[in-house]
């Protein structure tokens, strides 16, 4: 077991090294793509700033709590983007062009290779930017940072990355049946845009859907509320988020292998 984990870790690190070498071949492009993420992040911060020129609170959230929420979501999103997202974006093309064959023939689990074969190195500094904005918001909130608080935030970030992974995998697996599955990516972006909003703003069916079925309204909201106001996140909702993420991950793994059975390659 230990040898197998070591073997996968070696492959993963080799992917990282290869991705870095690849990115450094087109340094201008590398910098531009980092700037893209910074632009969109700044856009969200400007939106918050402009909104709070007109109001004091939104659904009970102050300006710096909102900044912390957006920073936390960005941190999770960028980490997921670093290690997995680019691979999922390329997944429909792998199927359409039959290049998935090359991954299936390698001595490692197919899902592991599909999820991790390339790193998006440019997202690493952007995840630090998300962390930095969290720190900036935290300083304005005047709440004390504790080791327990940091450990809790890190735990929620791991959960968040797992939730991103499961949701995008579920959305991208239909590529086994549909020729062009890029439309599913748009749904993913819209779903995780919801994670950046205060949960208290939502009502009725949508609140239930995005809390109990796809818990995107919990993943950043829970740690941010707890960090900003001190104390721990509600145990019941946290347990639901953990259970929901595990269930979605299990469903995504099953769905991937179900789809894989349909794969027939595209070669002659």
């Amino acid at each position, binding site marked *: 077991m230990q040898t197998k984990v070591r073997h996968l870790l070696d492959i993963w690190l080799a992917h990282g090294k290869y991705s870095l070498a690849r990115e450094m071949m*087109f340094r201008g*492009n590398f910098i*531009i*793509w980092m*700037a*893209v993420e910074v*632009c*969109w992040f*700044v*856009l969200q911060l*400007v*939106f918050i700033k*402009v*909104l709070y*020129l*007109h*109001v004091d609170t*939104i*659904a009970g959230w102050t300006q710096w709590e909102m900044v912390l929420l957006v920073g936390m979501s960005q941190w999770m999103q960028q980490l997921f983007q670093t290690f997995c997202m680019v691979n999922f974006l390329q997944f429909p093309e792998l199927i359409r062009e039959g290049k998935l064959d090359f991954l299936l023939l390698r001595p490692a689990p197919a899902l592991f290779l599909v999820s991790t074969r390339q790193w998006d190195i440019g997202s690493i500094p952007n995840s630090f930017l998300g962390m930095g904005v969290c720190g900036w918001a935290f300083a304005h909130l005047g709440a004390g940072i504790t080791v327990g608080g940091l450990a809790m935030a890190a735990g929620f970030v791991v959960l968040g990355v797992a939730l991103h992974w499961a949701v995008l995998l579920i959305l991208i697996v*239909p590529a086994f049946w*549909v*020729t*062009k*599955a*890029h*439309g*599913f990516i*748009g*749904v993913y*972006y*819209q*779903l995780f*845009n*919801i994670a950046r*909003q*205060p949960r*208290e*703003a*939502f*009502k009725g069916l*949508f609140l239930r859907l995005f809390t109990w079925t796809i818990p995107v309204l919990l993943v950043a909201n829970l740690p941010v509320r707890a960090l900003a106001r001190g104390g721990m996140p509600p145990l019941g909702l946290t347990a639901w988020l953990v259970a929901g993420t595990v269930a979605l991950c299990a469903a995504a793994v099953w769905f991937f292998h179900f789809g894989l059975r349909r794969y027939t390659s595209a070669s002659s």
Partner: protein
Amino acid sequence: MKEALSLAFQGWRGIFTLGFQSALIYRWGFFLRVFSSLLPLVVTWFVWGAVYQGKGTLGGYSWAAMMAYYFALLVLDNGFAPTEDDFQIASDIRDGKISQILLRPMNYGAYRFLLFASSRAAHLLFASVPLAVLLWFFREVFVGIPLSKTLLPAFVAFCGSAVLQFSISFMTGLLAFWLLEIGGIVFILFAVEFLAGGHVFPLDFLPEPWRTIAVSSPCGSEYWFPVSVLLGHLHGAALWHGFLLQWMWIAVAFGLAAFLWKRGLKKYTAVGG
């Protein structure tokens, strides 16, 4: 003369039909794109609902006017905004596909514009059903808007916005004459257009002088101006000034696009069959 015109018309009609059919080849992707373009409305509805809690008007907008603003943006996005035109133009250049067009008695800009218009027509046709349902369901947000007076000028402003947005996409696509990859530039430009154009929030929410700068920029003519015309926020001299500004930016964009096309063609080389 008449025969030449008829032939040209047949050619353009053929391109339009081709674009319309191409938009519908990958139906799943197409329907999902329509669906995901409607999802942000959910967020808008709830978040702005929370912003307006206990407030009458903000930045000169009531809650209903704010919702009408975002509904109008949704229509603009679905029926009048380019989607992947810049990437397709860049791919035409990078892969040498424009060689085929250059050899034909055809204007590449007009050819791309017809493909853009046809794909938007297809998108609008299929998005019209969910859009109509949404608009009907939330019809009370339009109650205070004098649609009978604003629909016609708004349609002209929406068309102006489509031409301006297409021209900007066309220019961005032409950067492929010099750059290997234009994706980063496209998304940076997109973010600037969204923010300065009033796609994220109405420009009236900005403090001065930022509001005036944004309204006067080409981005303001792309989103804020046509939507404000529809909502009846602009009258008389302000309306004519807005149209003048929009068409001035279209002229500037056309001039720049023509310049880039001419310079790019001098740099373009095609190798092989």
